[in-house]
């Protein structure tokens, strides 16, 4: 594509790094992209993919936090983008994960959004181009040309809101292609919303595009697609470039294990904590083909069947699993795949359907009160929004839910006249402040004044006060420091041991789940990809997260 300088790669990154407020998220990333190449970029959440993209596109979030390290070259010339428009001007296009299409517009209008073909008119000399009328015919032709490049058959007159999801993805890509100078195209999880056939058509289309000289960076968690499509695979982990290799040299299994890292040497870690009060057969509950498997004697504490939850950004499509009494059950998976939706849906915070049985009895969904009434407690991932009353003192926070749903910490005649029992509230709060080592000036301090870790402990205390049978916890260690992390996890483990409470932990940190839980379910695209005992090797989990089907994972263990 570059006529003058054929040897220079289209894009070269040298030692790109980035710190956010002293927190290193990306270090020493160097690689080249050549015209017509298709590169797979893979990495877990927090591996630094989005930061890298933000740097490449000159997003304001980078410059407003002190810029980045390292240099970028396009066609051998040094560039430094300070706004996305500059990146666009250099022919870098991006197709985002969320559709940025206007629903009421036709395919044509969307593809040519703000690049409409205009009829010349005298008015435009007096005012500006904006008073010229649109040349619909020329626009439709251009849109059709862009769609044809992709090798699909979509009418340019079709309204986007009436299109199946797959079409929308094609329209997004067509929009980038129509930009005459696009030479490098970033696709962020383009197949996530597609059906299998649609995904295949897309892969073919991308191949066709690459042959026309456009370089493509394909970001996906579906490793088989990455392997099928890409010539090179770049793996990021913890902000570092782990490998940059030809795709054929890697198996999907290798990619998964490189991504998750922490090879087999950590396999023993979970076995150091065998204290969970579970019967042996619980451990291999779902996967074990063991012939010795006994008939289940106890009813499951929680049985979820075909649950769906409409939680924005964390859609749960069809999830079924069982949790044994007294078990610590982990739910893991990549962000946005629905793991947070499961506990939120069970607790009734988002519209949900399907069936949830608590000790055999059906639970009313969509009513948080019903879930709380059945002795379930919930620690939200949104600590400051849902979890705490930030402007209220600790004793209020800790006893609030128990007061509201169980009528405790009240004096007087129920339904007629009741007042708060301040003394009991304070006593209870003090008990937990000591027990959980909450650092505060006393039960009267406002919850908003505590640090993240201590706030999380308050959230736990609030749940413990309810004396739950089943405790659901989302992201227990998100945004808290390492010391507090251990303390929170130990607290959960001890609470489980002492009270036999069933605990369900949802977390993005796989290691954390593996160290605390008995079994871990991995959620992928709103469905359970598989449930493994926590002692399984990390790469097994990695495979499940990457959308490799159960069978593959099983075959690998044998």
């Amino acid at each position, binding site marked *: 594509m570059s006529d003058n300088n054929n040897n220079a790669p289209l894009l070269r990154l040298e030692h790109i790094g980035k710190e956010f407020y002293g927190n290193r998220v990306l270090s020493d990333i160097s690689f080249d992209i050549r015209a017509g190449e298709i590169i797979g970029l893979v990495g877990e959440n927090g591996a630094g993919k989005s930061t890298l993209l933000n740097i490449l596109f000159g997003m304001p979030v980078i410059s407003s936090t002190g810029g980045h390290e390292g240099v970028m070259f396009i066609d051998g010339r040094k560039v430094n983008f300070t706004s996305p428009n500059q990146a666009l001007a250099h022919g870098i296009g991006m197709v985002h994960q969320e559709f940025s299409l206007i629903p*009421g*517009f036709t395919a044509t209008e969307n593809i040519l*959004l703000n690049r409409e073909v205009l009829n010349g008119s005298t008015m435009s000399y007096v005012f500006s*181009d904006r008073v010229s009328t649109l040349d619909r015919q020329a626009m439709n032709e251009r849109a059709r040309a862009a769609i044809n490049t992709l090798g699909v058959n979509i009418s340019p007159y079709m309204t986007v809101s009436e299109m199946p999801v797959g079409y929308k993805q094609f329209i997004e890509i067509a929009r980038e292609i129509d930009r005459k100078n696009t030479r490098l195209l970033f696709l962020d999880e383009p197949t996530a919303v597609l059906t299998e056939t649609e995904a295949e058509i897309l892969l073919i289309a991308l191949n066709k595009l690459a042959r026309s000289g456009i370089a493509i960076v394909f970001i996906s968690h579906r490793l088989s697609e990455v392997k099928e499509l890409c010539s090179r695979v770049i793996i990021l982990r913890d902000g570092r470039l782990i490998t940059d290799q030809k795709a054929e040299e890697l198996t999907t299994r290798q990619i998964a294990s490189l991504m998750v890292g922490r090879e087999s040497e950590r396999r023993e870690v979970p076995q150091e904590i065998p204290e969970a009060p579970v019967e042996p057969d619980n451990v291999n509950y779902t996967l074990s083909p063991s012939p010795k498997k006994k008939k289940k004697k106890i009813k499951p504490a929680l049985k979820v069947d075909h649950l*769906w939850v409409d939680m924005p950004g964390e859609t749960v499509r069809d999830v079924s699993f069982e949790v044994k009494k007294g078990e610590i059950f982990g739910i893991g998976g990549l962000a946005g795949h629905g793991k947070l939706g499961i506990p939120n849906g069970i607790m009734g915070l988002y519209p949900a359907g399907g069936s949830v049985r608590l000790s055999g009895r059906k639970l009313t969904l969509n009513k948080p009160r019903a879930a709380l009434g059945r002795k379930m407690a919930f620690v939200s991932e949104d600590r400051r929004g849902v979890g705490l009353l930030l402007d209220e003192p600790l004793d209020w926070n800790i006893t609030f839910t128990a007061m509201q749903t169980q009528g405790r910490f009240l004096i007087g005649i129920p339904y007629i006249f009741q007042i708060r029992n301040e003394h009991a509230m304070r006593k209870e709060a003090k008990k937990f402040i000591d027990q959980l080592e909450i650092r505060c000036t006393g039960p009267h301090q406002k919850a908003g004044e505590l640090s993240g870790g201590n706030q999380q402990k308050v959230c736990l205390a609030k749940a413990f006060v309810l004396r739950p049978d089943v405790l659901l916890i989302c992201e227990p260690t998100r945004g808290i420091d390492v010391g507090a992390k251990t303390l929170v996890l130990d607290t959960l483990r001890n609470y489980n041991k002492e009270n036999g409470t069933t605990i369900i932990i949802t977390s993005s940190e796989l290691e954390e789940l593996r160290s605390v839980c008995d079994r871990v379910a991995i959620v992928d695209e709103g469905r359970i990809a598989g449930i493994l005992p926590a002692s399984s090797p990390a790469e097994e989990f990695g495979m499940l997260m990457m959308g490799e089907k159960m069978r593959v994972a099983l075959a690998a263990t044998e």
Partner: protein
Amino acid sequence: MIRKLFDIIAGNAVPAVFIIISAFAIPLSGYSASYLIQELLTRIGRNSFLILSLLIPIMAGMGLNFGMVLGAMAGQIGLLFICDWGIVGIPGMLLACLIGTPIAIVLGIFCGAVMNRAKGREMVTSYILGFFINGVYQMTVLYLMGWIIPITNPALLLSRGYGVRNAVSLLGIRGILDNLIPAIITGTQGAGQFFSVQGGNAFVMIQLPFLEGSIRIPLATLIVIALFCVFIVWFRKTKLGQDMRAIGQNQAVADSAGIPVNRTRIIAIVISTVLACYGQIIYLQNMGTLNTYNSHDQAGMFSIAALLIGGASVSRASIANVFVGVILFHLMFIVAPMAGKNLIGEAQIGEYFRVFVSYGIIAIALVLHAWKRNREREAARRSLRGNKGGE
């Protein structure tokens, strides 16, 4: 299928209800066809322009522009000046427009800038802004005019020497546009009557033998309104119109495509405000008197009510909605008092109906809008989940 049918009915429920009410009220009122048509034509000429000025902000996703009263005030200030200077006829009207335009532009820019800071709450913001600017207008008219702003005509001023009277006669431009091109539809016996009254010749005369009485048509006004419609149709086809549609549907996407969102929104409001200024001038030339402190008050409310009755929603309105709305809304105003009187001997029920209906219809439209948006959001969420998984 049933859902589709339901959607069609729900989408047009408001006009349907009004058609039904009118169908009962017209025979009850006992008015003749020619009287009704005459009244309707007058009111179409009087109000359509004001209502049409609402269309462009709706297209840009800014909802119903309650801020159009700002334009109305600008128009009234223009009218006050020409009254003072004694300029009559078409030149007077044009001069009033000329004076009102810069004021409307400035007010429109101000209104648009405020609305850009209150995205998603444009309607309530513009409504309250209307009250605020009303205060400024009253101060200008009540204290500054005749004191700092020279107004010399004693017929305009309060007896204390400054401040404008509550009622200002617009005799100089009364009906000047309506009667610019005299046009008439007559029945056989009505023609002579008309000529004797007017003492002139009709430029256009249509004879319909079955008609009783005669109908005067405000032809020039209707032509101006038709031109305005052509303008809107053309405007929709321009790049600016396309940008406004894009912004109206999704600001974030429009912004990321490089469309200057805030600027375009301000342009939409400025156009609307300026057109409302002209609309108010046309309205007042028909009425013939200016209620200095009240005329603009109800301009916004009644225009919005009429548009909504025409089947428009907060996010969607067409030229057809304007005319259906004007006809249905005013038809009801004309017949309701008489029908009320004939039915229960109480003419006031019509006036009661007017207020009740305008506010009620706006409230219903807002609730419907919120309900529809919720439903769309839910559908969007469901579609994310895909068709697999239960429902």
